[in-house]
């Protein structure tokens, strides 16, 4: 029954969050602020992870494709498809769930326990809308940009480290990443990313918003937010893959 309670409470919170804004201009400014803190602030970690993921996939794939029956360019195909279909949208989203999710849950949770959310309510402001909606919009708009950036850097990382380690030639890698490229794969990845971005912003916000107690509970909310977000990302990854690719 607990799951139904949380689902109902989450639904009510989202309904409130998507309510009519008090002042559109202020919400618009908040969206840009959130894009800056949640999106631009994540560029560094996304870049590092993507480059190393691409490099490792290239070297591991080359190591496993030692059969003379498999052409060398298959390494490039594997790197491209792994990055576009799964690693960039899902793994980077899981990492963002940890980084952004904990930040959102602890920020809103702290605001709850220090009565800042009550202060917003007393002023007649829809606190859910003011605090949560800009984070959701910023994530849904900016995460796809992060994921495209990740795909590009992952494939580039594979190229650089593949050549440096000598597991693949320049010609084979370029041939591989351009071989039978399906643009729909990128659209599929962006659809997944948008859904994950909504989860990354809304689930930790839910846990933060309903924090009760003090600093210890803020920490617990943050952990819960990240764990539930990660589980939901993996669940929706499976569902969306089934629906969009099969």
């Amino acid at each position: 029954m607990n799951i139904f309670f949380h689902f109902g409470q989450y639904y009510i919170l989202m309904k409130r969050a998507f309510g009519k804004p008090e002042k559109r201009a202020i919400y618009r400014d908040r969206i840009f602020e959130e894009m800056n803190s949640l999106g631009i602030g994540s560029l560094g970690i996304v870049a590092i992870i993507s480059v190393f993921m691409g490099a490792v996939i290239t070297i591991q794939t080359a190591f496993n494709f030692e059969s003379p029956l498999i052409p060398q360019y298959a390494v490039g195909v594997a790197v491209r498809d792994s990055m576009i279909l799964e690693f960039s949208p899902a793994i980077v989203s899981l990492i963002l769930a940890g980084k952004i999710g904990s930040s959102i849950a602890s920020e809103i949770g702290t605001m709850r326990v220090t009565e800042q959310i009550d202060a917003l309510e007393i002023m007649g402001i829809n606190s859910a809308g003011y605090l949560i909606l800009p984070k959701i919009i910023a994530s849904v708009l900016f995460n796809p940009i992060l994921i495209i950036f990740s795909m590009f850097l992952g494939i580039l990382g594979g190229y650089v480290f593949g050549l440096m380690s000598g597991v693949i030639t320049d010609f084979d890698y370029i041939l591989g990443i351009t071989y039978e490229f399906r643009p729909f794969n990128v659209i599929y990845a962006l659809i997944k990313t948008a859904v994950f971005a909504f989860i990354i912003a809304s689930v930790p916000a839910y846990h933060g918003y309903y924090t009760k107690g003090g600093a210890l509970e803020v920490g617990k909310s943050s952990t819960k937010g990240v764990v539930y977000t990660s589980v939901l990302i993996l669940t929706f990854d499976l569902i969306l893959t089934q629906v969009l690719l099969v």
Partner: protein
Amino acid sequence: MIIGESGSGKTTLLKCMVGLNEVDGGEVLFDGRNFYELDFKGKKEIRKEIGMLFQGGALFDSKTVEENVVFPLSMFTDLTESEKRDRANFCLQRVNLPDANKLYPSELSGGMKKRVAIARAIAVQPKYLFCDEPNSGLDPKTSIVIDNLIKEITDEYGITTIVITHDMNSVIEIGDNIMFIYKGDNWWQGSKAEILKTDNQEVCDFVYATKFMKDLKSKF
């Protein structure tokens, strides 16, 4: 003023009055308007008439002092940026914090936070001011400053102010009508003069709990 022991239900009552807690029954009337019978829009209108001073100040950590005071003006008025800043500066001067505009809440002392919270509450010229234990965590001298500020603002702006406290010094300093809450009930109600003379046992146990108050009683 609403007074009572810790855990007697003072803050719960206050939260019910301002609509932060759901109520099982009863009425909360703002000049005849029953808060809990109003629709969302009606409740929102009443909330715009309310200023509240929270126990910890409840200032927005990510905003400077000036931004905290400007915030309600930005949300609910069509004032220009310079008009909003002028109003914020006026309110901050009123609470004797003319040079704190650019500071963040983490850089303020407890008393300064309370004063900024008062400035934020009066920025939109509320009709009703609710104060939840305005003296908690403050030294006696700063407590008097905050008490006097609340009293002055109440008189100056003609606001109805409800203060929750368990500090008898505040009651004596600024109390007008006093309600004593005991185990969640409205146990006793009267004026400042009456509370010092009452023979209600629970009220006397609370009012004369300190040596200072006992000494004061012996002088009467």
